[in-house]
């Protein structure tokens, strides 16, 4: 994630022209970070690697559609990977629900503390220097956003995981993200 974005944008431009060397370089620079993201959502290495492979197929064929003026390269890549991971997670859940009773697999939180959604969101807010601005958000509110973002959970699943009413969870997520938007805008203004 510390890759200079202009360099990634240049590589994406080369990939759009179907340059295999640029594609390999892009993969080498971004795949570990993207796999980490996919892993959080699908929860298993083999499935996460399937997601990564599918995502990079899309990158090869879709790089011409990348527009540097509207999205940073990493955001564009993250978006492809998260969408694929979320699709895979939900297809998997539907299949399990159709065959056996829905188990708790989807609810299981990863063990390593630094992989915990709560720790991740707090760290990311600090890095973006908006943790102070976001501080009046309760821990449960941040946790709700974190479960949605890092693990691809939907409102009902978040409600179940946090033992909170569905309507409350929806409001937490909505207000939390709107707050994130304001805080980022403020941070953008203050550094401008």
């Amino acid at each position, binding site marked *: 994630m510390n890759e200079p974005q202009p360099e990634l944008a240049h590589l994406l431009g080369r990939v759009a022209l179907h340059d295999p060397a640029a594609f390999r370089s892009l993969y080498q620079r971004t795949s*570990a970070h993207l*796999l*980490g993201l996919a892993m959080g959502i699908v929860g298993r290495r083999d499935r996460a690697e399937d997601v990564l492979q599918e995502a990079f197929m899309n990158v090869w064929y879709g790089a011409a559609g990348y527009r540097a003026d509207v999205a940073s390269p990493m955001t564009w890549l993250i978006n492809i990977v998260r969408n694929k991971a979320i699709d895979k997670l939900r297809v998997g859940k539907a299949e399990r629900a159709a065959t056996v009773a829905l188990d708790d697999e989807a609810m299981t939180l990863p063990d390593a503390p630094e992989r915990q959604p709560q720790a991740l969101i707090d760290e990311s807010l600090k890095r973006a220097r*908006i943790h102070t601005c976001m501080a009046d958000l309760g821990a449960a509110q941040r946790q709700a956003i974190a479960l*949605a973002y890092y693990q691809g959970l939907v409102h009902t699943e978040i409600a179940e995981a946090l033992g909170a009413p569905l309507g409350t969870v929806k409001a937490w997520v909505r207000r939390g993200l709107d707050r994130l938007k304001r805080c980022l805008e403020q941070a953008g203004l203050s550094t401008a």
Partner: protein
Amino acid sequence: MNLLHPPRLDALARDYALGTMTGGARRRFEQLLRHSRAAEMAVLAWQERLATLAAPVLPLTPRDQVWAGLEQRLFPAVAATPSRLSWWRTLLSGRSVGGVLAGVLLAAVVLREQPGWIGLEPVQESLPASYVGLLHDRGGKPTLLASSRRHGRALTVKMLQPLAVPSGSVAVLWALPKEGGAPFAVGAVPANGSATLALPDSAEKLFFGVSRLGVSLEPGPGSARPSGEFVLSGDCVKLW
């Protein structure tokens, strides 16, 4: 309900980008995204904001098989285990080469690299005077390479890709003289691999007036003339 009303659109884009929008709603919104620039911009803005959350995710290096799989799916020619022939096979598949000149150059390179194919030992500094032919299938894929030393009495045939020969049929190589003279049979060629065909006379005498070669499928080796269309054909040229 106007989905494109700005506050509503922003809320939908937010739920879509986060991933909490599901099922039919998600599919309908994706449809909207394909047609509405405003919807697309709203989603992009949310994705950019949410990307802030991705920064501290711990990287996980993919196993080598992930890249190998991508390579195999996207660049099969590169990923294939390189055989001794693969570099010029790649060259050939590129369609950029074609015609007599390319065929001659290619054959020249091949002969230089693989002198044993036509019995050229020891390796000579200059290319031997030879007759060569490069035959393509109907799809334009190079399929058969034929070569003979100018004064030799053998013709070496190398199949570059397998030829489908129905059981009971024989693939026969014909020489087609310039100015529409009657084709004469050179010999039977294998479906794959290589073969050396004995020539009734020196290549120079047999092929001097020949401009093209063709392969037809015959009921037996004794046909006096091609009984059907050529499944392979190409130019025959003299090298010296």
